[in-house]
């Protein structure tokens, strides 16, 4: 059986003036894979991610996301992916239900489908009591779990998660990762950035960006063997500090 590739990146580059933020990066991501996209602050992760989700045009190179081209089919990409970040995920001054309805509407789901999905989501996360509470009043960990579920509303092929667990308590952080495992197990591809190196270990494969380049890409196990390290934290420090 041939494994389906859902993200294909070849020589992708982004230049701002005389600064190369992303320098000819290449990688493939398989369907249902949890792909960790790591790097120091300023290494070019966000810039690369913006190109992949179709909101920033590359300077050169090519990329295909969920079967669509990042130059010419950005609207199709946006329909086929989910996205959440630590900074923006949900509207604080809408209730949980209103957020679900809003994002369901944005993604073009029918009213019946939204209502069905909404009930399912609230039940799965055990949110019956807070379904009509403003999202802003909920603890961060809950918000992030809801945001992740909302990013899956339209059954996207790929979900992009930009530091989804920053500042979240350790128990909720793990519950969040269990949700990620579950989604991946159902065939959703997960593309995730994080500064928690233990989370890097949860990924099937991990890439590490340094100054615009991908310096390493492999399973956490192989990376640790290759760099003679006990943990991904050590691997990261060795790569990013050199």
């Amino acid at each position, binding site marked *: 059986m041939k494994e389906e590739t859902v993200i294909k990146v070849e020589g992708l580059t982004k230049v701002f003036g005389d600064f190369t933020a992303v320098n000819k990066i290449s990688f493939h991501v398989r369907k249902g894979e949890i792909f960790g996209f790591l790097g120091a602050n300023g290494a070019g992760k966000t810039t690369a991610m913006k190109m992949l989700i179709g909101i920033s045009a590359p300077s050169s190179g090519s990329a295909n996301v969920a079967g669509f081209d990042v130059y010419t089919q950005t609207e199709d990409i946006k329909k086929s992916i989910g996205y959440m970040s630590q900074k923006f995920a949900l509207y604080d001054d809408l209730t949980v239900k209103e957020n679900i309805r809003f994002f369901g509407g944005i993604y073009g789901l029918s009213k019946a489908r939204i209502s069905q999905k909404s009930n399912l989501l609230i039940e799965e996360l055990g949110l019956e009591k807070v379904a009509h509470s403003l999202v802003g009043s909920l603890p961060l960990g809950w918000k992030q779990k809801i945001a992740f579920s909302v990013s899956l509303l339209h059954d996207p092929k790929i979900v992009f998660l930009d530091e989804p667990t920053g500042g979240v308590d350790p128990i909720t952080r793990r519950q969040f990762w269990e949700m990620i495992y579950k989604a991946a197990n159902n065939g959703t591809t997960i593309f995730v950035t994080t*500064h928690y190196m233990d989370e890097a270990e949860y990924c099937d494969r991990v890439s590490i960006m340094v100054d615009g380049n991908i310096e390493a890409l492999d399973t956490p196990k192989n990376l640790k063997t290759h760099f003679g390290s006990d943990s991904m934290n050590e691997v990261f420090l060795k790569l990013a*500090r050199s």
Partner: protein
Amino acid sequence: MSIRIDHISKSYGKVNALDDISIQVDQGELFGLIGPDGAGKTTLFRILTTLLLPDHGSASVAGYDIIADFKAIRKQVGYMPGRFSLYQDLTVEENLRFFATIFGTTIAENYDLIRDIYVQIEPFKNRRAGKLSGGMKQKLALSCALIHKPEVLFLDEPTTGVDPVSRKEFWEMLKRLQDKGITILVSTPYMDEAALCDRIALIQNGRILEIDTPKAIVEHYPKPIFDVGAHNTYLLIEKLNAYAHKHSVFPFGEYIHYTDQRDGFDPLELRTYLKNEGLQNIHIERTKATIEDTFMELAKQ
């Protein structure tokens, strides 16, 4: 004693941000407040830096009472809030000069204290603070908090959202400041940073779970803890959670940390169970508890 916190409570409406908190920090100690978003860390910082009044309890910083002597405290402490709070449209050097002037000193007078940190951003001293990268902003904020040579330094989540390399460098800077006799109270949501403190308080939902040295805290972990791995992590988590005798199941890097309810737990029994459930490449090995294990165990109760 450098910081004395005595039964402090603070509520915002119905939310108990701090619930009867007592902590004592010694002179020259590097003390960590370890807890997630919403634990109450920022509220405690704001009370200690005299920006907020507690509902109950008392506290003193550098020998001064936070209510009666609030002006004296403001002269003696440095505070780096969690949100970047420098003037974005002043340059690096202007910000530093501004803070020095406010405290009646000059950059030159205390340059020794900040040299290590400031040299790294000095090449950009004419750049506006708003145009700095995250790591550089953090270094500038620390320089500004230090420029009046405070006795006590309050750092509210200085490393949140910062990559592991910059975080490591930041902690090395803190150690050097501590060597100069400054008392440091620092908060972080990263449990791995807790090990770098002399003592820590684990805090969640406004309550202190435990206060001790990082070493003692992990030694207090009540149960034997095991690394469990298999070919499919998702299935493994599911099956461990379904196991009748499990006490806790938490993913931890490459492995799952598993504890059992029973005193005489036999790992072989678990291995057989997992094998029968269809898991392959099963790995079960005794491991040591970390601060994060302890935090989660305490937070569960």
